[in-house]
């Protein structure tokens, strides 16, 4: 009789999830699923609210990447106003977005993934954590904390506070900054650059010893999607969508984020609260795509900053086409940290950063607004429809983590097929299956969707896997 093995909860990812591994009659893994059982319903909550409240409301979606939601929301609201945002505000928005990328990626690498990567997947679980890392190399751990502080400090200096800053707004931002803030940010740059390069060196130094994990933790061709600049470089705030396939060939160029509904669809499965976005021209599930650091490395032709360009050039040599190994999300994340620090330094050299014209003001000029930016985990869309009184009639958030959902499920299945055998689970097997998910650094609290749109199926099974009862809600 087929048997189901459940790993719950998945540790060291944000939010709540469950993995089910299905065995066939011979005890081999037949399939696996990554379930998201957390439900939040933010899209429903904001119906009826004035649209100018949205950046503040949306920041509450997440305590790790609130800036991403503030930005995408503010951009959607800019769209409702129909205004051009002043350059000072744009530069602030760019810098804070990059600062958030640094702090979020630093948390992901130093505190969540580095124990696996630097202590080894088979290290005892009681040692394979950030405290084990501290025992092994305290200075490296301190550098991780300082990198997070760097990102968080910029958010605090510019946004007013580190988590959920009341800063982004329709038409611009709410606070100007002065020379003191700018100079403090500049003061952090040399150490931050050094730490990022040390981390890249450390990770590259262990990749040869992890060839099996690289091969089997989510290594398959998919599409990759992300924003790029008009010239095809890395871009996090604006730009156009580029999609490449697993061979690195361009599938779509210059797509307007405002028209995302024409090329992206969202499917649902009864076993997860998280949706399954796909590229419409290839259908579901054939149109599976990945977003985030690995995708950005694949869709962009260059970084546009000297240190990151060197690393990105080397990164791209890891494959003749696109780099398809999800394991390389980790390295891509570190290259992005390096790039973000370089870009932040550039922005601090722009006199317009200190301008006083920080917000364009206008009444509502449109009933529909779409905002798009690159969040740490990938491309983020906020889409609002408002009535003539400026009240939100509907909202749709297309979240980075959910866009990786199909790929995460494939990665879990691939890892289970290779690493899980027999009728019991060993710690090393479990950790590798979980590590397949951690490559994507999912933030599940961000990625669950609206009330009534996603049915919940509850199944009651006995120890042998036979179905005793089944309930469907929603």
């Amino acid at each position, binding site marked *: 009789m087929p048997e189901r093995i459940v790993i719950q*909860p998945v*540790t060291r990812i944000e939010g709540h999830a469950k993995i089910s591994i299905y065995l066939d009659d011979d005890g081999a893994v037949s399939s696996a699923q990554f379930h998201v059982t957390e439900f939040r319903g933010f899209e429903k909550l904001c119906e009826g609210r004035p649209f100018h409240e949205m950046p503040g409301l949306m920041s509450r979606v997440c305590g790790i990447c609130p800036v991403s939601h503030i930005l995408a929301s503010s951009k959607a609201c800019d769209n409702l106003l129909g205004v051009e945002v002043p350059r000072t505000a744009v530069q602030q928005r760019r810098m804070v977005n990059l600062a958030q990328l640094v702090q979020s990626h630093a948390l992901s690498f130093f505190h969540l993934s580095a124990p696996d990567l630097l202590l080894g997947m088979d290290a005892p*679980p009681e040692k394979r954590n950030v405290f084990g890392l*501290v025992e092994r190399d305290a200075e490296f751990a301190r550098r991780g904390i300082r990198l997070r502080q760097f990102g968080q400090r910029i958010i605090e200096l510019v946004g007013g506070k580190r988590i959920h800053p009341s800063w982004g707004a329709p038409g611009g931002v709410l606070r100007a900054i002065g020379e003191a803030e700018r100079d403090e940010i500049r003061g952090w740059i040399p150490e931050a650059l050094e730490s990022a390069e040390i981390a890249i060196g450390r990770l590259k130094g262990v990749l040869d010893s992890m060839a099996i994990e690289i091969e089997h933790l989510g290594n398959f061709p998919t599409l990759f999607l992300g924003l790029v600049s008009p010239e095809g470089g890395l871009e996090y705030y604006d730009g156009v969508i580029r999609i490449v396939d697993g061979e690195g060939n361009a599938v779509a160029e210059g797509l307007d984020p405002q028209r995302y509904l024409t090329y992206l669809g969202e499917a649902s499965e009864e076993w997860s609260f998280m949706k399954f976005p796909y590229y419409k021209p290839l259908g579901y599930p054939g149109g599976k795509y990945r977003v985030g650091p690995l995708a950005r490395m694949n869709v962009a032709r260059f970084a546009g900053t000297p240190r990151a360009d060197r690393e990105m050039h080397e990164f791209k040599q890891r494959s003749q086409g696109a780099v398809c190994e999800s394991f390389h999300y980790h390295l891509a994340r570190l290259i992005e940290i390096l790039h973000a620090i370089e870009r932040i330094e550039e922005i601090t050299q722009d006199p317009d950063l200190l301008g006083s014209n920080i917000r364009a003001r206008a009444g509502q000029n449109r009933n529909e607004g779409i905002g798009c930016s690159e969040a740490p985990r990938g491309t983020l869309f906020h889409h609002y429809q408002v009535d003539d009184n400026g009240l939100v009639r509907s909202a749709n958030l297309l979240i980075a983590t959910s866009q990786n959902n199909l790929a995460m499920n494939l990665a879990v299945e691939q890892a289970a097929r290779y690493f899980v055998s027999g009728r019991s689970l060993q710690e090393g097997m479990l950790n590798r299956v979980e590590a397949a998910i951690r490559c994507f650094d999912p933030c599940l609290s961000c990625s669950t969707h609206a009330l009534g749109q996603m049915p919940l199926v509850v199944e009651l099974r006995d120890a042998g896997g036979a179905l005793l009862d089944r309930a469907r809600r929603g």
Partner: protein
Amino acid sequence: MTVLLIAIGNAMRGDDGAAHRVIERLEPAPGVVVRGELQLLPELAPEVARADRVVFIDADVEADEPSIEPLEAGAGAGTPLVHTITPREIVLLAGKLYGFTGRAYLCRLPVADFDRDGLSPAAEAGVEKAVGLLREFIR
């Protein structure tokens, strides 16, 4: 003597915000630094290490009365990190990475209801008593 008071919780979730109410009620005092945190993250460790005494103030559904108890450093059991860490883990990081030699405490606040605006009467009463305990502690 530096005392660091760290309030933990989400003020938008009813009684979970009780710790924030406590630090709002405490008068500024020399040598006392207060921080309000939605969640604990590793970068708090250096600040903890600079204090002689640190008190984590947190809502606790299992507390019957407000209390201030010594807190030992320690790692989590088996699930070391999500995107947040615990007070015991912060103290451990502060000691291992930044040489914290001070003393750490946990101030537990009795709470019951997280699905409301503002604090419940029971949490308000607990805040009142906790403020008194902390005034004595700081003195």
